[in-house]
């Protein structure tokens, strides 16, 4: 889309875009270029010189059991977070949409956890499931279940999934309720007159009409669980036990900053870059379609 009317000039518009371009160049493109460059080298042990290794860092990564494991961990983690947070949100949105009165106040009560940072959510859930003082751990103990996410890999995964999904419900709820309210009531009523029960109406009319929202949320939630959940992992498990909750982003951080393995960390950054690019393209292809609906 273009404007018919435009102002003339070369220096003024260039000066106007310059602040953004400079920041983008210094903090986005230059570091990204550095990551690509570093991924092809390994520094010597004293950090004095760099040795060209071509795709060596990548070969090394994919031969590494822990890195391949991190891919699978990330896949399991993001699928679980997406399904749990979208499932709960859809359930609540469908309920709230059925009300004539009061759906506004429920909305207010349900949306504000959006403001809780993932890292804070991590601390809240860590507190409840803490092995020594956690309330839920204590009650589980009464029931004869010995909860210990510090040692048990499945429990650690379950905890980071719950904490990450919990904070995401508000966001998904908001988009689902907007999507539900955009469905013409007359369509649903026509089906009701024809005798379709609630579940049939939901399955055959509501859910298909909601599919643009659902697909959009799928992509956005996968991106969320790939990147923004770093705070949850870092506060609750620090990637453990035995790297059971080390998602890709966490591994870039722990190899680069804690392990100081720059070549490997840079190669991981480049792989993540490819992943984000694909997700962004999917998101934009879809959004372009959404405009036509």
């Amino acid at each position, binding site marked *: 889309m273009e404007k018919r*009317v435009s102002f003339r000039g070369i220096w003024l518009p260039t000066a*106007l875009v310059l602040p*953004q371009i400079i920041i983008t160049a210094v903090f986005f*493109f230059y570091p990204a270029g*550095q990551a690509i460059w570093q991924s092809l080298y390994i520094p010597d042990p004293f950090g004095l010189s760099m040795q060209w290794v071509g795709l060596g860092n990548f070969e090394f990564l994919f031969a590494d059991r822990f890195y391949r494991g991190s891919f699978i961990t990330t896949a399991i983690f993001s699928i679980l977070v997406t399904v749990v947070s979208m499932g709960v949100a859809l359930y609540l949105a469908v*309920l709230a949409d059925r009300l*004539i009165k009061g759906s506004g106040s429920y909305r207010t009560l349900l949306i504000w956890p959006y403001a809780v940072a993932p890292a804070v959510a991590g601390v809240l859930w860590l507190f409840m499931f803490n092995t020594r003082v956690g309330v839920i751990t204590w009650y589980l103990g009464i029931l004869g279940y010995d909860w210990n996410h510090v040692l048990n890999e499945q429990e650690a995964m379950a905890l980071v999934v719950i904490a990450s999904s919990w904070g995401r419900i508000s966001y998904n709820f908001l988009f689902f309720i907007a999507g539900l309210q955009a469905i013409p009531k007359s369509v649903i009523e026509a089906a009701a007159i024809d005798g379709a029960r609630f579940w049939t109406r939901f399955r055959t009319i509501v859910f298909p009409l909601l599919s643009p929202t659902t697909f959009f949320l799928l992509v956005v939630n996968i991106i969320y669980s790939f990147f923004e959940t770093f705070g949850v992992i870092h*506060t609750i498990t620090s990637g453990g036990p035995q790297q059971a909750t080390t998602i890709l982003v966490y591994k870039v951080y722990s190899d680069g900053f804690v392990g100081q393995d720059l070549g490997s960390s840079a190669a991981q950054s480049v792989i993540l870059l490819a992943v*984000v690019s694909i997700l962004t393209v999917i998101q934009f292809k879809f959004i372009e379609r959404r405009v036509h609906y």
Partner: protein
Amino acid sequence: MNNGSGMVERRGSGLWLTHLGLVVGILFIFFPIWLAFVASTVAHREIVQPPMPLLPCNEFFDNYSLALTSGINAPVARMLFNSGVMAIGIAVGKILISLLSAFAIVYFRFPGRKLFFWLIFLTLMLPVEVRIVPTFEVAANLKMLNSYSGLILPLVASATATFLFRQFFLTVPDELAEAARVDGAKPMRFFVDILLPMSRTNIAALFVILFIYGWNQYLWPLLITTDPDMNTIVMGLKQMFPSGDEIANWPVIMATSILAMVPPVIVVIGMQKLFIRGLIESEK
């Protein structure tokens, strides 16, 4: 919104079940926050002897004043201030540079316009998480560690905000710019006198979203601030845990968690309409 036709609405027991389902969901969402609040009002000795009480006790004042004035590594009041500077800096900075670049891209034909547009678009594919080590090195070389500019500047470029303003400017009637040009108004006059006032609601909505985004940053402050006095509250929380085997000071940590949520929660509830608008608009 529902338009009130009763055909497919629940009555009687169905209505109660709907309310019940929603209340259960709300309890699930509130429970962790309630526990955090309770924990911030009890004494440490009650926490170490589980189960902790489920109703608030009377150490509220002691815990919060201890957290705010001395904290564990740094006073929480200091961390709150740092978070505030970072969140407002990021929100204002992003809005400013995005307004300017969107104005240039929509209202001018100049060489490099397409190129700049795509450069800005590409930043979408470069979240800070994928370039942490080299971005950290840049910030370190620019002497930005432990500084507000280091907390703010690297996060200030945003394709989303630029797109949002571009989208909005495209819907502004051409006649307005035409009239301004015929009157001989300079482009910047048009921008300040006409475009900015028209963008007020969009700016406010975006501010709400970006404030929360900035406040809740975790990874970047974790890398760039090593001095506890420069920690933001969200990343400083994790630093309050002991590294050894002793039990964490949960009452103070939980008081800090509550303090970390209060400002963004106030913003979301207080500006709910703008928040929803900002959220839905910025995702388009």
